């Protein structure tokens, strides 16, 4: 069977990425670098979900960090206070994020774009405030500490390399399910909603329902990432899930390219690299993030590889 050149190239690329991915922990001996990769993986999962919401469906959500937090706190509480093993906690965290995603998505039916954005910010703030104040349940500002070490069928996840493979697994799940989704009629429906919601509904797309669907699904992945954070960090605190985090993810999506799944990785990479590089001058962190936001949006809103929908 003779494959066309383009397909052959794709397979070779794929194989190369696969080999590097599996071998990475052995290439990068220093746990510091592997740690960086793990953070990169976590933010990739978050941003991929956000790209579905923002880049594909055109809904601006500045509350993504709250769903990240929902996942994190759910896992923390289930594992620490109720002794649940990791896998069921992970699944439940994802479902909780999904559920609240649907809930927050419901107003899109009635509330205009900018107001919906405001709503997502408020949801994020309410989440943070509740978590900070409900000391009995969530540990307040101190958060929940001492989250148990996760085990999956006898495999204890302890080292950076272990977390790398866990993260990689979650990332593959995220990327491949999303890739299938955006290629399907559902993905087309989401894009149609972004392009022209009225025309989309006249084409047979149930716009109100699909917006809720896109939002919920995007948030599900945030829940996964939150669960990962909980066991990776062994603590969750409200400061992990502030509005700043949501902004970080938004920029990652924008810089990489809205409406382009694969491009998200480039955006996340640049943002996590920038954070690392600028760590010594951490007090300028938000200044730099703010500058990046303004400059990118002023001069190249479609990011590196984004859909032409967002070009000036």
């Amino acid at each position, binding site marked *: 069977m003779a494959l066309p050149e383009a397909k052959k190239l794709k397979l070779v690329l794929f194989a190369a990425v696969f080999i590097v991915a599996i071998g990475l922990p052995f290439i990068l001996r220093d746990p510091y670098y592997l740690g960086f990769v793990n953070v990169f993986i976590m933010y990739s999962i978050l941003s991929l979900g956000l790209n579905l919401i923002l880049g594909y469906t*055109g809904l601006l959500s500045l509350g993504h960090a709250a769903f990240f937090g929902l996942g994190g706190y759910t896992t923390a509480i289930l594992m620490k206070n109720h002794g649940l093993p990791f896998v069921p906690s992970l699944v439940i965290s994802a479902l909780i994020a999904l559920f609240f995603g649907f809930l927050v998505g419901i107003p899109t039916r009635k509330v205009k774009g*900018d107001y919906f954005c*405001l709503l997502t910010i408020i949801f994020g703030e309410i989440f943070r405030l509740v978590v900070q104040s409900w000391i009995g349940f969530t540990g307040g500002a101190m958060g929940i500490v001492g989250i148990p070490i996760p085990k999956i069928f006898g495999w204890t996840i302890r080292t950076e390399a272990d977390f790398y493979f866990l993260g990689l697994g979650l990332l593959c799940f995220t990327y491949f399910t999303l890739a299938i989704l955006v290629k399907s009629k559902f993905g087309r429906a989401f894009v149609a909603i972004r392009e022209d919601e009225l025309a989309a509904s006249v084409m047979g797309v149930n716009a109100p329902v699909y917006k809720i669907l896109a939002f919920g699904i995007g948030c599900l992945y945030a829940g996964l990432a939150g669960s990962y954070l909980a066991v990776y960090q062994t603590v969750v605190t409200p400061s992990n899930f502030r509005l700043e985090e949501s902004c970080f993810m938004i920029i990652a999506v924008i810089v990489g390219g809205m409406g382009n799944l694969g491009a998200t990785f480039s955006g996340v990479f640049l943002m996590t690299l920038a954070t690392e590089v600028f760590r010594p001058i951490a007090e300028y962190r938000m200044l730099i993030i703010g500058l*990046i936001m303004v400059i990118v949006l002023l001069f190249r809103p479609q990011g590196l590889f984004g859909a032409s929908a*967002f070009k000036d």
Partner: protein
Amino acid sequence: MLFNILIAGILLGSIYALVTIGYSMVYGILKLMNFAHGDVYIFGTLFCFTLLSKYHLNAVIAVVISAIMGGVLASAVEFFAYRRLRAAQHRMISMITALGAAYIIQNCSELEWGSQVLPFPSLIPAQFIEVFGHQISTTQIITLMVAVGFIVLFNLFLKYHKMGKAILCVSEDINTSRLMGIPINLIISIVYFLGGVLGVIGGILYSASFNAISLGMGFRGTIIAFTAAVIGGIGSMNGALIGGMILGISENIIAVYVSSTYRDTLTFLILIIVLLIKPSGIMGKGDYEKV
């Protein structure tokens, strides 16, 4: 007790109204959610703090300088960050830019003043007088008068001054105004400037009343402006006033009678409820989209 709470609420409400006007006008004209609004006027208030505590400037002079500075900063943000995006296809792009601008200003404020709460001087010597058998401080009365004074002045400006009328035209219909020869860019800069000025005055009044100023008030200030504007009706001057009052009074009542820890949460819940039920607010009219 209720009386004092009401007075305090009205006072708070008038301050809130002051800071909301600028935000509401901008949104009314440009449909842009100026996320940097609160951070700009808090920057101005912090600036005033430095003028007062470090340089011991006369109160009135300090207020005037800071207010102007706040106005200039607001216009500068518009000029550098928002202007180019006015014709943008997706409005959410401007919103994210606004957030970026907010973070830049916030970070600069933090570098200069740190994030702790600073003691803002009272400006008005405290004395108590009796009204209807209750004690009110002159500080409260004067603050109220100043706030209301500025609101009334601004209202008159919009109604009777040539430039004010131009602003109203632009907020009604920007394209027709342009065709009528009104200099849109100038008007918009002025709107931002005035919003910044009023915001800084409001911020100073607030900080003088509570003797506290901190960086964190910036974001909270933006949320207050949003909430009051939405409640009262975006783009409407009266709406900003009504929204500010309702927010100020209810916040006070909630803080005292319900719980002060959840005060912010409850403010947000009010905003959500209004957004879900009647997003156009009390004074706003519904939007009919022509297909």
